[in-house]
């Protein structure tokens, strides 16, 4: 009877300990950093002194831990992609790690994860094409050629030479953009005439949650990028967090690549800068 009571007490005690440890673990796993308002203001003042301007509303004050994301090379089976985009009966060549597929007026070039497709006389008429529905048509074309991103953000739509729309899409994973990967398409009323892009498919997270470097510290480091251009005022137009793939370092026989969590800083001169959220180092972008 006495031992039964001790067990009950111990169960309650360990239940409390387990709850405490579980909460502690969850907090440590998914740390959210909050930046004080004074720190944000001080950062803006330092930026202003260096001729860099930013709206306070653009600076995030709460930052959640991030994980690295594994991306798969979707162009490993080049023939499947060629079949999807050209249909059967194409001519294939392979030189210096570059595949070239051709059929009638269409040409597809694949080098690693980069691909270019040209159709010099498209004949899939889209009579009702307009700025409003070009995104929907673009996503349908991508789905037809098996480029099946679950989530894509439109970065840019432009009407060129009053003839065709140029649309740039960027993949997203759980709401965060994957910088470095993009798909750019030219669509006219005759159909698709051109696509270029880096095609990587998001897979799974491959690291623990890693604490994010505060954006205020990143912005102070950002000043260093303009040391030689103090006279030229710069305005930061966007600050966002996402994943970055450095496509310049990838070999042609790539299988997977880790996308790094990054801060993206966009300036009014059209440049973007990428800072590793873990180390705080600038890892890409800029002039």
């Amino acid at each position, binding site marked *: 009877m006495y031992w039964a009571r001790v067990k009950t007490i111990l169960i309650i005690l360990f239940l409390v*300990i387990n709850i405490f*440890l579980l909460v502690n673990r969850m907090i440590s*796993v998914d740390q959210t950093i909050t930046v004080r308002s004074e720190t944000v203001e001080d950062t803006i003042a330092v930026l202003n002194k260096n001729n860099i301007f930013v709206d306070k509303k653009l600076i995030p004050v709460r930052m959640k831990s991030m994980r690295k994301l594994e991306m798969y090379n979707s162009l490993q089976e080049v023939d499947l992609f060629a079949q999807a985009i050209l249909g059967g009966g194409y001519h294939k060549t392979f030189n210096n790690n570059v595949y070239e597929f051709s059929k009638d007026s269409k040409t597809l070039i694949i080098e690693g994860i980069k691909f270019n497709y040209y159709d010099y006389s498209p004949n899939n008429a889209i009579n009702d094409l307009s700025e409003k529905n070009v995104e929907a048509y673009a996503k349908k074309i991508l789905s037809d050629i098996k480029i099946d991103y679950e989530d894509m953000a439109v970065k840019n739509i432009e009407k060129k030479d009053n003839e065709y729309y140029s649309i740039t899409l960027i993949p997203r994973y759980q709401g965060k953009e994957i910088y470095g990967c993009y798909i750019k398409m030219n669509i006219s009323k005759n159909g698709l005439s051109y696509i270029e892009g880096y095609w990587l498919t998001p897979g799974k997270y491959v690291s*623990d949650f890693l*604490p994010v470097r505060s954006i205020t510290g990143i912005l102070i480091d950002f000043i260093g990028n303009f040391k030689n251009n103090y006279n030229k005022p710069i305005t930061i137009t966007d600050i966002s967090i996402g994943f970055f793939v450095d496509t310049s370092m990838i*070999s042609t026989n790539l*299988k997977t*690549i880790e996308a*790094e969590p990054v801060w993206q800083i966009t300036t009014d001169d059209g440049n973007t800068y990428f800072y590793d959220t873990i180390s705080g180092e600038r890892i890409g972008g800029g002039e």
Partner: protein
Amino acid sequence: MKKEKLKTIILILLIANSLFLTNQIWFSKELWSHDYNFFVKWRDWKWVKVLSKININDESNPITMEHFFYPRKVVVNNGNYRNVYSHGDNRFFELNNEISSIFNTLLKGEKVKSEQSTDEEWLNTLKGKSFYIDYGVKINAKILARMAGYKDSSVLSQIDSVRDFIVAPGDMITNDIVLYIKDSERNSVIKFFMNYDKSKLTGIIEEFVSNSKPNYTFSFEQKFDKVNPDKKVEQKAILDPEILIPVKIEASQDIRIKSINTLNMNKIDKILKSFQYNPNTTRKYTEADNTIVYVENYSMLKIHPSGLIEYTETDEGKGMLLLPESADDTQAVPTVLPSEGGSNTLSLYESFSRVIAHINKVWDNNEFLFISSDIVENANKPGVYRFTFDYYYNGMPVIIQCDNENGQQDVLRHAIEVEIINGRLKSYRHYLRNFEEVSRAEKEIMPVILALDNIYKSFKPDQSEVKIDDVFLGFWENDTDVILQPRWGIRIGDRVITDPEDIK
């Protein structure tokens, strides 16, 4: 009663879960609010590292500088009978200690006289009672003296580099023994007379010659070292005079490459840290053949599934700075190189010792590794060195023959190839290997003369004359076989050739 059993199970589960969660919190690599996780820092403390090495299951076998200055082979000549000792023989270290003691007496320089000798006298000495010590590579004489503990010995000042030397009892009149050192740079032989117990030396020679070990002859004794017009069959292959020819057919065991699947994440993290890569921040991708590629610090590191690791600097002159063995990994990396003599050029000794320290950081099981390139000054480009290392099992080299990155087939590679420029790593290739015997049973190997004939015919189908620098028994590793069988090979300059039929 049933309720009590259930309570016991719940209690055990709760205790186990609390231990698991505590472990997760303590040992995760995350930052704590005030500093890095105590337990992560704790693992980096020096005394913890020292204690962690005292582990009976720890297979780590770091190499010391001394390891690279062991002779490749010691030949004990006792008149007609001749034995060879190499690393792996039971009594090799005992014999090496005796030789080292004699060599140290020379370096002390007390009552040492020297005079010029000749190649003829050198070869005649090898016929009589003597020790022949072969390092296999040229070693800078100053470094050899420094390794023996004599940084400023003047005895070897007249010699540039040493590849081999002979210790002989000398004449019957004086109590002096004689050391013949061949200067491999100047191609001259210097003869040193020094005071040493002659009867002790003779005793050691007699002690180490055993009828139970195979007997050898030197190629010059068989007249394989020069064209002999008197012979009925014209000799086209000329052998280096010191090449050893076994009198009887040799026998040896097969060896096996131990599994390299042990390259788990902990070991990969250790490799990354040895190249100053941060496992958390380094950029990583995988190639189609499952090679993992890391990019950081102006360099690229590839870890191949075959156990090959490759480091290359991507920006010239910005490769990793190798630190001395004494430097703590956690210390800030110096931007200016400390060097001998105050110049910015890192000395040969310092460069070599830093390479050794780095190899030990990359992989800690290197007992079979030996230097296979000369350890000599680079007169044209001081501070620029290329060192190669090969695996040797029981004194026999393991020749790695595999396809290279350009698609060329059966290219010979060294176990380790390092390029270093003033302490900065330019490139590094390392085949991570470990070997073990397949069984204790020995198998007979093709007679050396027959093997030489086969190699010559395949190498020189036009039957032209060729000078062979070495004939040896080695293991050939290719991309497919895990079990390696001993085969005869020859070395001509930097080229190593085996019988192409034999390798199939």
